[in-house]
């Protein structure tokens, strides 16, 4: 991993379209500003990883149980 030291109000460029600036440093928290084309998705890493994990769990879910799950849904659709 590339490590760069930056001070408040300094930035780095990733390619020529993505700019990441250090806006504020307070204790152990750093506030970053990100300028990027809108089609570039920007996520907090932990949320992205949680969704990867949720998808993997969805794939591993036990299929026979889907039957009783269907019943759960049907029950409410009949209402």
């Amino acid at each position: 991993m590339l490590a760069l030291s930056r001070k408040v109000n300094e930035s780095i460029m990733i390619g020529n379209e993505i700019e990441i600036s250090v806006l504020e440093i307070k204790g152990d928290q750093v506030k970053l500003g990100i300028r990027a084309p809108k089609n570039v998705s920007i996520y907090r890493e932990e949320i992205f990883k949680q969704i990867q994990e949720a998808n993997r769990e969805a794939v591993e879910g036990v299929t026979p149980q889907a039957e009783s799950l269907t019943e759960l849904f049907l029950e409410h659709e009949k209402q």
Partner: protein
Amino acid sequence: MLVDTRCFGRVELDEKKILQFPQGIMGFEDKKRWTILYDIESGDGSSISWLQSIDEAGLALPVVSPFSLMKEYNPIVEDEQLECLGEFKDDDLLVLLALTVPKDVEKTTANMKAPFIINPATATGIQVIAENEDYPIRFRVAEAVRKMKEE
């Protein structure tokens, strides 16, 4: 074409039914081709379908329409994130949520935070992360269904 599936064995699939996910789905970024399978045989109009990978038989996620869990579901997503879907009107899009089904079905959850958004006209889809703070990744389905019943 013939496709091996997780829940239905080998099935004949019209190639027009293949959906392109240019970015894959999260956790399976290299899987770009998917399709939606319905269990017609159960014949009960079950609202659960399967997002099945074309390229890996074992890879399929149960999915439901968010509207079977709540009346209003409005994920906030930047328009530019949906550029890969081609041209569409909002009403034309198909929105699905992945279900995680543990052994105790009662604890089944739906991922409200990261819906699949599909444009049937271009047969293209994407999984996005909604900006809505109050949409959980693990939304308890059974409770939602009970709530809908009460209303």
